[in-house]
């Protein structure tokens, strides 16, 4: 297997130039997924009448279908449906002016939102029921109890899993290239395609992933330490 190192050296900077796109995709998709996942977890835990079964079906559907199908539905079918709808409604918005990056945000956040929902629900299981009752007994409202007491502890319990979700999301952004959004894997495929050096191009992406994921893991680790200070205490020994 003769690896064309010269190609790697020349292509790496060009591919790395698209890192901001990958990071933006990851950050926005994670933000959407975190919000959606949290709401779903709450809806299911609080057994809200209509919403809870709906969320369960959504989660099993997203978990049960390949990512490529989800991308196809969002990138190919949704715009047509929207265009047809707009024509009927007589509006003159041109659906096709929408930057494809928005489709990528939605597609990437689907699977991530389901994983966040599962992580949060697992986190909720680990928080003791007494915490909620203590809050209520102090005359706090349900939402105040959630915001001040339950939410911080749930997120802290779910942090390790959320770290994994972010790493998986970074690797999943390579699928955005199917929605004509060029990020590092997309650029690698283009450069690789020109000179038929696909494997070397993918190696560049691999090297970039190592650095990015190492940094992200370091940040998640620091964040988790800061959040779980209440579990270790700040004073040396008790």
């Amino acid at each position, binding site marked *: 297997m003769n690896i064309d190192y010269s190609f790697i050296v020349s292509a790496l900077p060009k591919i790395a130039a698209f890192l901001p796109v990958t990071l933006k995709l990851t950050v926005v998709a994670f933000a959407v997924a975190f919000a959606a996942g949290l709401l779903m977890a709450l809806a299911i835990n609080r057994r809200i009448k209509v919403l809870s079964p709906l969320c369960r079906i959504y989660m099993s559907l997203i978990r049960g279908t390949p990512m490529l199908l989800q991308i196809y539905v969002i990138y190919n079918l949704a715009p047509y449906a929207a265009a047809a709808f707009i024509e009927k409604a007589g509006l003159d918005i041109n659906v096709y002016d929408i930057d494809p990056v928005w489709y990528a945000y939605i597609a990437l956040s689907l699977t991530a939102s389901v994983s966040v929902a599962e992580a949060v629900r697992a986190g909720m299981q680990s928080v003791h029921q*007494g*915490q909620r009752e203590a809050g*209520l*007994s*102090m005359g*706090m409202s349900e939402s105040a109890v959630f915001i*001040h007491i339950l939410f911080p*502890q749930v997120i802290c319990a779910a942090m390790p899993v959320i770290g994994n979700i972010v790493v998986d999301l970074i690797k999943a952004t390579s699928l955005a290239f199917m929605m004509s959004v060029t990020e590092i894997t997309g650029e690698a495929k283009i450069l690789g395609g020109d000179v038929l050096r696909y494997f070397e191009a993918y190696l560049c992406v691999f090297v970039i992933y190592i650095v990015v994921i190492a940094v992200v893991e370091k940040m998640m680790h620091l964040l988790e330490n800061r959040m779980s200070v209440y*579990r270790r205490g*700040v004073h040396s020994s008790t």
Partner: protein
Amino acid sequence: MLKVQNVKKSFGTNEVLKGVSFEVDKGDVVAVLGASGSGKTTLLRCLEFFERADSGHMELGDLSVDLHVHSKKTARQIRQKTAFVFQNYNLFENKTALENISLGLTAGHGLSKKEAEKIAAAALERVGLSDRADYYPCELSGGQQQRIGIARAVAVNPDVIFFDEPTSALDPELVGEVLDTIKALAKEGTTMVIITHEMAFARDVSTKVIYMDGGVIVEQGPPDVIFTKPREERTRKFLARFIQDFDYVI
């Protein structure tokens, strides 16, 4: 001050409370005794709306509430007038000792942060733990945590404080410091309802004793009556072990 009428509660087929009624006047310290499974904790949890009673009525000051059909708002109003001290402390794990107390005042009673912290500091002083203000629960011993739980309850200046076996989760040597704290509160005239197994404490500190068994109040009355010549046979048998210390037999 607090009137409780005909509280009934069953979990599926198992009837836990078969119509319990009692009254608590201002400054009263009511000790609730009974074997485990007699329904004492369920009774208290129904009064704090952690469980929904099947039927029953409760009057606290000018508020009167049906224990089965009640809105979230009224439940919160009652909770704002009462306080609850748990068997396993249930301090907010992600908050320091001071924050545990001040949070109840700010989020629970709408006080300003500055004022809440002033009251919280005073409450800590009262239970003698001012030097542990910025400690997290995981850094405190069981006894210290329970005393902060009590401080948290007292800080909201409730009409009545419910204690659910405050000392049974503690190591023996820590029980003393918690009981002393409760004794001090009693002396200051705080109205309290305490579920406990500490017979000596019940006899010395309470102003009224309730003995429960099988979901009903078997007997209630002042401690010197109950602990010396209880009317009901079941009460005598329950207190038998304890009464011998008085070395005279009825």
